[in-house]
């Protein structure tokens, strides 16, 4: 029930097509206009004399028409709220009036047995249809065709063809109403012929008078209602019409009937006080509603939305035929909901995609009755649905794994109950209003416990883990299922829905007009009231509740601060908020995404949480400026924040005063420059003890007295003196006197008295200060002697106060005026500019460092592959032959029944020929065997951290029984394998981590010239890869490339570090210098990324150049130029090149470096190995050594034996 009005008998009804309005014409001659959403009476129209039976809104114009027992048809404007004109002509009661859907016509049916068509534009009668031989009770236009259907007490229903009339009157309809009004007088009514409207069919079948008749909106069907208590359905074709069936059930006269605008339903109302709903296809009763005392007279349907209105003896009721709220449930990123045709679908918020139908629930509940609620259980992937049919049923249904389209559910458990929700992974609660019993059931649908709900409980809802919320009309009760105990109770009336916050800490209780937010212990946090009906609510991740009313999405913070987020055209049911998107279901149960601007509430939330950084962020990035936010901030006591928003000087000034920010206030005062502003500033500054500002405002205001007094207070004698001068200039004697008093200047006081001829006072002053000469002078001036005057006893002379503190020098802050943390954040942002980029250069300051961290030029990639000359060594044995298996047990050997089994760790070792897996299994011995065989690993102590890292990550410790050690479990590489022959351990620091984390760390060490760290990082990569696994053949190649690259970097860095050591040792001999130059040249040889190689080249170039090795310098410069890159770098190289060429391009010291030869650098001696010279290499990383180093441990990986026989590292085995 949406709305109900109380009035006298309602005879006619009309919905406004767009607005939430309904017109009700009453038996008492009044016409009422209601807003059924707000429940308010908008207007009353009283001009008819006697009952008004017919009423209709115009589809587009602000008009309506009414017809009454005064034989009159009136056309009204609801804008001007008056009757525009009256159409006279009927000779008896007018029963119904209707506008044509496009032509300017009105159709009326009257007790004078005629049906008439009027043109309301020229206010004329254009057609009168005669033929009925009793009262014409109802006549309606066909919604599309040129047909009219009418019903009469003569027991017949007639269908009329009015195409002739239309031809005749194909008047342009686009002319506006006003134009037509102007022209109306010129036209005249000429039609009174019968040929315009001819009877097409006469439908006979009712045994008594027919009260109402209506066309189907799309099908060629007619429904009629009569005093024979029947509702009849008729069908027509081009040529004939016939009775289809009869709906029997009313036991009194049927007053009116209509087709449901969207569904295959017929609705009828009657004097038996019932509204009945019939299935159009089966003509069976679907639903009926009975009113206690009121006979129904009329029914109307809203043209767009699912709303109906019925008029009865005591008013009107507006109602929905069915619940429109779709049943839904949200779990993490998925929405499960039931569509209008009762299919279960899901919607993925991350992909914004709707699934196909998961299940069809058509068989659940009765047809036409939507399902009420859906509760989802993620653990079992099952749903619990309730339906109101059969006085409440629920079903527990497992969802199929994949959406295969509409299939009927297979495994269904059902029972009766009005509400059902999951309360735990394997439990749900069912509540039946009839028994007031809550039953807790397990997944096999058997009751495990039950308890009596508090009296009058109407619904139950999830109440947090292990708890239920029991909802009564006046209360909500939090009930602990385990303890069977009422934990808390809160008096909130009429709660209909509960929405839990994502973190489960808060819930919003929604009733018709209130939102109450409670915490999980059911303590009220805040509450708010809405005049408009509240439909739904959902929580933002940050703890803001968004709720929808009929026409708005609003938000509320936990503290009750709320506001509008956006307006809505149609009612929606919110299901989730994510960033700027609100996901909702509309009334047709279609998922929709609405975009919102969350700035306002995020800002307020940040304000409440005092998250100033975020506020700052919001202020900077959004256009959140407006009076509302300013006044909000001011109201909430954050004027200093509001200050940040405001541009308007006046407001800024006010805010600055409020938060005591005198600087801003002064600035603004200067801008405004009005006495009032200065006065206020002065007052405020005085309170702050900021006398400098006070001084300025007094100066601005030319407030000399106050200024002088201020100077006196602050002890600024100099300025006081100046003030007295000013006073003198102004000729202001009072001021002069005062200033003279302040500075203690007796002479000037006397002088002043003399000037204004106040000699007695001058004398007195002089006398009291003991200035006898002056006294004499005055006396002389007045021509008097001392004897001639009598004077009071002079007091002591006024002494000037001493200045104790020189206050004037600085302000005297009396009020805390510290910056708020927000302002601090604002100020701090300047200093925040992190100088991450201030890396030290590899060489010196003037070499620009390429910022491209992982700039891997394509050509360089090719280089890397080329440089990989140990591909054969690593040779992957993908056939999976068992030669490498160590510790082979019989995997499927029979295990003794009672004896212990083999641990998963043993299984791992058994399943894998990879060293890393053996390490994880704790089988270090076999792992070492494998590594020794594969890559000649010998110095294992370097690998110990890696071994321990892998081993530590292999097992978890699950606390179990008291006083027993925890249960050990094994961490697996893949989640889903449970076949014991495929189980493998998780290996930490995999290839991906190494490339995305460690490698980048190494690069940055290179860039920032932290080679000591870099060499460690790259060596770690080498060692981590040595004991590792990868997932695919492609990754094997990636791993190889990474090994090669790490080797090159380790080598390069080692060479450079060696050179630096020499340089640091200060060996200035030619021998030492030669070695340094050589090393710097070798540094350029390893295959580094281009950007890094440039660094090496630049270093070598500079070193060579500074030691007059012009030939080498030239070659390095050429190589730098060949690589190109940063312009600064290139320029330097060019300069070096020029100078080197000019200087003869020869080397001063002959070094062992042939710029034209291709050579490798021995990783032990750091000397060249030219091609053709015999060499050995590390079986793991492929670094090259002179032959004499064979058998030593590799200098780079520090694990493997150089030149050892090895089968190649295995990181992956096919099919494992």
């Amino acid at each position, binding site marked *: 029930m949406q709305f109900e009005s109380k009035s006298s008998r309602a005879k006619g009804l009309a919905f406004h097509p767009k607005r939430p309005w309904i017109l009700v014409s009453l038996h008492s001659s009044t016409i009422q206009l209601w807003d059924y959403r707000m429940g308010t009476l908008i207007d009353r129209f009283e001009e008819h004399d006697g009952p008004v039976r017919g009423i209709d809104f115009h589809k587009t114009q602000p008009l309506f028409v009414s017809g009454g027992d005064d034989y009159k048809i009136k056309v009204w404007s609801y804008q001007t709220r008056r009757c525009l004109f009256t159409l006279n002509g009927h000779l008896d009661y007018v029963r119904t009036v209707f506008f044509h859907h496009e032509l300017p016509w009105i159709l009326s049916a009257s007790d004078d047995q005629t049906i008439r068509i009027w043109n309301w534009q020229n206010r004329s009668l254009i057609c009168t249809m005669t033929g009925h031989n009793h009262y014409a009770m109802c006549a309606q236009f066909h919604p599309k065709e040129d047909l009219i259907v009418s019903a009469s007490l003569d027991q017949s229903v007639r269908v009329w063809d009015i195409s002739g009339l239309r031809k005749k009157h194909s008047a342009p309809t686009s002319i506006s109403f006003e134009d037509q009004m102007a022209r109306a007088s010129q036209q005249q009514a000429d039609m009174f012929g019968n040929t315009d409207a001819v009877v097409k069919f006469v439908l006979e079948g009712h045994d008594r008078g027919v009260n109402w008749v209506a066309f189907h909106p799309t099908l060629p069907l007619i429904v009629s209602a009569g005093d024979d208590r029947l509702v009849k359905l008729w069908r027509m074709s081009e040529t004939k019409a016939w009775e289809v069936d009869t709906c029997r059930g009313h036991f009194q006269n049927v007053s009116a009937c209509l087709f449901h605008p969207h569904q295959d339903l017929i609705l009828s109302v009657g004097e038996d006080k019932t509204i009945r709903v019939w299935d159009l296809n089966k003509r069976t009763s679907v639903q009926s509603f009975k009113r206690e005392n009121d006979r129904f007279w009329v029914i109307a349907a809203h043209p767009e939305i699912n709303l109906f209105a019925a008029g009865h003896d005591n008013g009107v009721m507006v109602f929905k035929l069915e619940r429109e709220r779709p049943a839904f449930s949200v779990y993490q990123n998925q929405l499960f909901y039931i569509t209008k045709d009762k299919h279960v679908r899901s919607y993925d918020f991350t992909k914004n995609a709707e699934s196909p139908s998961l299940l069809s629930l058509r068989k659940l509940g009765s047809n036409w009755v939507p399902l009420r609620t859906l509760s989802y259980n993620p*653990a079992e992937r099952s749903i619990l649905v309730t339906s109101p049919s059969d006085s409440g049923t629920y079903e527990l249904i497992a969802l199929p794994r994949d959406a295969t389209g509409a299939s009927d559910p297979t495994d269904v458990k059902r029972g009766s109950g009005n509400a059902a929700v999951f309360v735990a*992974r394997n439990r749900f609660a069912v509540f039946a209003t009839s028994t007031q019993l809550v039953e807790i059931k397990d997944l096999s649908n058997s009751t495990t416990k039950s308890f009596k709900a508090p009296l009058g409980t109407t619904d139950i809802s999830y109440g947090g883990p292990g708890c239920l919320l029991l909802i009564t009309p006046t209360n909500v009760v939090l009930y602990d299922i385990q303890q069977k105990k009422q934990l808390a109770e809160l008096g909130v009336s009429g709660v209909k829905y509960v929405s839990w916050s994502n973190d*489960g800490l808060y819930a919003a209780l929604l009733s018709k007009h209130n939102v109450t937010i409670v915490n999980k212990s059911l303590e009220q946090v805040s509450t708010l009231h809405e005049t408009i009906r509240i439909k739904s609510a959902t929580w933002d991740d940050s703890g803001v509740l968004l709720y929808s009313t009929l026409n708005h999405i609003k938000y509320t913070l936990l503290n009750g601060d709320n506001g509008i987020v956006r307006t809505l055209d149609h009612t929606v049911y919110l299901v989730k908020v994510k960033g700027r998107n609100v996901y909702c279901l509309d009334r047709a149960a279609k998922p929709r995404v609405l975009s919102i601007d969350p700035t306002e509430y995020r800002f307020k939330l940040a304000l409440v949480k005092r998250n100033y950084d975020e506020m700052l962020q919001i202020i900077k990035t959004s256009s959140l400026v407006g009076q509302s936010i300013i006044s909000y901030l001011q109201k909430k006591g954050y004027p200093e924040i509001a200050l940040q928003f405001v541009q308007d000087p006046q407001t800024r000034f006010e805010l600055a005063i409020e938060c005591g920010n005198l600087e801003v206030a002064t600035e603004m005062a200067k801008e405004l420059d009005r006495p009032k502003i200065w006065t206020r500033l002065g007052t405020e500054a005085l309170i702050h003890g900021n006398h400098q500002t006070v001084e300025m405002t007094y100066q601005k205001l030319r407030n000399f007295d106050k200024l002088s007094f201020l100077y006196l207070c602050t002890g600024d004698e100099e300025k006081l003196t100046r003030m007295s001068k000013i006073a003198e200039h102004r000729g202001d004697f009072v001021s002069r006197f005062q200033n003279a008093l302040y500075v203690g200047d007796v002479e000037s006081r006397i002088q002043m008295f003399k000037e204004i001829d106040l000699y007695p006072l001058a004398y007195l002053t002089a006398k009291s200060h003991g200035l006898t000469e002056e006294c004499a002078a005055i006396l002389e001036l007045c021509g008097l002697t001392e004897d001639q005057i009598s004077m009071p006893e002079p007091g002591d002379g006024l002494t000037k106060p001493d200045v104790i503190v020189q206050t004037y020098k600085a302000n005297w802050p009396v009020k805390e005026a510290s910056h708020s943390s927000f302002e601090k954040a604002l100020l701090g942002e300047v200093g925040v500019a992190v100088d991450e980029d201030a890396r030290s250069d590899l060489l010196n300051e003037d070499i620009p460092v390429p910022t491209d961290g992982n700039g891997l030029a394509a050509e360089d990639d090719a280089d890397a592959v080329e440089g990989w000359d140990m591909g054969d060594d690593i040779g992957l044995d993908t056939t999976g032959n068992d030669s490498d298996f160590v510790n082979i047990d019989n995997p499927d050997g029979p295990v003794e029944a009672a004896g212990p089994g083999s641990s998963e760790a043993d299984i791992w070792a058994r399943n894998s020929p990879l060293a890393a897996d053996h390490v994880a299994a704790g089988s270090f*011995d076999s792992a*070492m065997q494998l590594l*020794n065989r594969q890559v000649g690993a010998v110095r294992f102590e370097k690998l*110990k951290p890696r071994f321990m*890292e892998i081993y530590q990550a292999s097992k*978890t410790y699950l606390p179990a029984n008291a006083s027993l050690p925890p249960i050990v479990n094994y961490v697996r590489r893949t989640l889903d394998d449970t076949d014991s022959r495929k189980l493998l351990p998780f290996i930490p620091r995999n290839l991906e981590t190494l490339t995305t984390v460690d490698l980048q760390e190494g690069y940055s060490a290179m860039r920032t010239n932290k080679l000591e760290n870099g060499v460690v990082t790259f060596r770690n990569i080498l060692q981590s890869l040595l004991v590792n696994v990868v997932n695919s053949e492609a990754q094997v190649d990636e791993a190889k490339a990474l090994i090669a690259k790490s080797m090159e970097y380790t080598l390069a860095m080692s060479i450079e570090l060696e050179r630096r050591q020499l340089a640091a040792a200060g060996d200035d001999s030619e021998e030492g210098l030669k070695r340094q130059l050589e090393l710097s040249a070798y540094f350029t040889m390893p295959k580094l990324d281009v950007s890094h190689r440039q660094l090496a080249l630049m270093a070598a170039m500079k070193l060579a150049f500074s030691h007059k090795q012009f030939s080498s310098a030239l070659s390095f410069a050429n190589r730098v130029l060949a690589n190109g890159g940063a312009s600064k770098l290139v320029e330097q190289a060019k300069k070096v090149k020029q100078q080197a060429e000019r200087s003869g391009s020869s080397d001063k010291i002959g070094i062992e470096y042939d710029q034209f030869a291709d050579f490798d650098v021995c990783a032990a001696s750091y000397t060249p190995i030219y091609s053709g010279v015999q060499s050995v290499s590390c079986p793991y990383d492929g670094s090259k050594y002179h032959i004499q180093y064979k058998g030593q441990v590799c200098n780079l990986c520090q694990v493997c034996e150089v030149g050892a026989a090895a089968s190649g590292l295995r990181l992956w085995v096919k099919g494992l």
Partner: protein
Amino acid sequence: MDPFSGEGELLTITTAFYTHAYQSVLDYDTSALSSDNKKTAQTLKYRAQIALGQATAVLSSLKSSKDAASRSIVALAQQNSGDSSAVETAASLAESDPEDAVVQICAGTVLAAAGEYAKAIELLNKHQGSLEAVALLVQIHLIQNRTDLAVKEVAAAKRWAQDSLLINLAEAWTNIREGGSDKYQSAFYVYEELASTPGTTSPTALVGQAVAELHLGRSEEAEAALQQAVALENVNIQAIANSVVLASLVGKKPEAVQELLQQLQEKDRDHTLLKDLAEKSQAFDTAAAKYSAKAAA
């Protein structure tokens, strides 16, 4: 009525005990309980005390008691205070009073902890519908890597005590051992439910949740749960132990891992993880010593 069932008055205290919220067990007010239940509650309190490391207090309060149940509790306390005679006592009690429920549990625990799994299983198999005995059996089977038997035990118990927390936990244990994302997930749900229900949130529940998440590969969530557990009770040893695992798993810097190991060392020198690592470190050195380069640099 079964005193351990959801309806019973011992629900709160047993729940606390099973989730290792021992302090809550000790704080539980037993004055309103019936005399039978009072006894059970007292046993739980003794065991909680032992678990909290207050074995000596238990020993002194049970000095004079001579009944089998009390002696078995004494044995448990002795074992916890490092008295090796405990195993003997337990074994003899298992011979003399195998039908006593308290003896079954306490002596069973002592035997299991001492590695006498066969004897422990024999004793515990005599239980008459004791959920605790089932839980112990499940753990022993898991220790012996007989997941199949553990699963059977749980399945059997579920037939008569599906709703019990302890059985749910035992199922979670077997699920985590068995593995596969579904089983990990369902174990996760058990712990998550415990951890999120007011009143049963305990570090143990959180650690269980974290372990399940760890196995599910959700390391960030696991870390959060572990931190929460540590925040609840900063001496929670298992939380620290699993933090070590987690840190290694996500490849944290060795220093961070070492720091956690240090913490664990301080809290519980004899933790399985430490013992295991020490053993492995030794094994590593022995194994590594077998290899050397042919030539010295």
